[in-house]
């Protein structure tokens, strides 16, 4: 039906998190491998430095052959409006029911691709 077809939590928990610049992995695999003890791990964690800073994402990368994911800064929450009217009548052991349902959805989430973009007929020589 015409509705929000999308689990909103999926956007928050996965899609948004996986966009460029939102998560940076930092790790140290030497400490454990060389016999480090858990009780000594505090300074090691404290010493981890992210390999890149958020400011690095302000400028788009110059060239990339793999796909990149971005989120529209004007993204809005999906809205669904639903209205219905029902009529139900029982006679003896029979029931007749007439229902009307209307639904309208706006700002539904979508994904599209800007590369191989829509052809531009407006170009002037």
């Amino acid at each position, binding site marked *: 039906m015409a509705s929000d077809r999308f689990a909103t939590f999926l956007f928050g928990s996965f*899609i948004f998190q996986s966009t460029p610049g939102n998560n940076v992995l930092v790790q140290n695999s030497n400490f454990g491998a060389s016999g480090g003890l858990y009780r000594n791990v505090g300074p090691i964690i404290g010493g981890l430095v992210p390999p890149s800073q958020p400011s690095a994402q302000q400028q788009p990368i110059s060239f990339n052959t793999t796909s990149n994911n971005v989120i529209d800064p004007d993204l809005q929450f999906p809205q669904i409006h639903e209205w219905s009217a029902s009529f139900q009548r029982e006679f003896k052991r029979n029931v007749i029911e007439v229902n009307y349902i209307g639904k309208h959805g706006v700002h539904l989430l979508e994904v599209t691709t800007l590369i191989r973009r829509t*052809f531009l007929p407006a170009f002037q020589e």
Partner: protein
Amino acid sequence: MSETNFLDAFNKIRASSSYNSPLINLIMSGNAANNGGTARFRALNTTNITQGSVGAAAVVVSQKTCVAADVTAGICTNAQLNQRLLDLNGFTYLLQQYPQFTGGLNVFDSNDYSNYNGLQVIFKRRISAGLGFQFAYTLSKSKDNRSWDPALSGVSTGSVQAASSTPFDLRDRSLNYTWSDFDRRHVFQGTYTYDLPFGKNQQFLNTSNAVVNQIVGGWLFSGTIIKQSGRPFTVYSGVNTLSNVVQSTADCNNCDRHMGSLVNESGRNFWFDASDRAKFSAPVPGSIGNTGRNFFIAPVYFSGMHRSPRNGR
């Protein structure tokens, strides 16, 4: 001959095998009088020109880097090898907004919309004298410009059915707004159960004879029925006349959306027979085709299941 835009130049090159385009010369070589530009354009886009696939040709030009054959053709120099022609000639963003992302730039936004209207009539009978049923009819119409859940990696492209939910034109989502993929106009559903009136304490063959009762008693009829309109589907032209993301939909001469029925031709099943198929053609470069997304309707779906178990009365 003057040209107004890339599409116009493409059409003129397509119309005449001897035509040299000043525009194509300019963007390929940096010099409008250098016919080597048009010659290379033709060589790179032989199939695209034949088919009218202007969207594919635009990407070929946009992503074109200088290679040895281009040096030979005189549109770039040895010093410019492996550099992008449009960058060299000052037309970096001419055909693609973000030409540096050659593998795709997926954008998540919130511009889709949908509408549904449905009318249901349900008639039910509680089990009485062994008979109970529920029958329902739904008349509904669902329209939207996408019918499936998006995910960032899930941009559907080309000619698969799901691709018709991808914008034909980024600036005009209404081009995709039409009957949903799941728009089944008429749906009839029913369930029923009926205890056959034979055997002990029943209307017929009411006997205390255990043998007779074992044979004729305790049977019931029950089942479910679904009959519903077919799902809409999109017929593509096979050509990228509008963009290189999704193929344009087909042109169909005087067709209505109820066209089609199952036919068997020499052992193969077709939905459109030979005369129907002859009505299809590819739209001209720059246009979308007159059928649009989800224009046609697939066969009616029917499912019936009937059981006659014994309820061990």
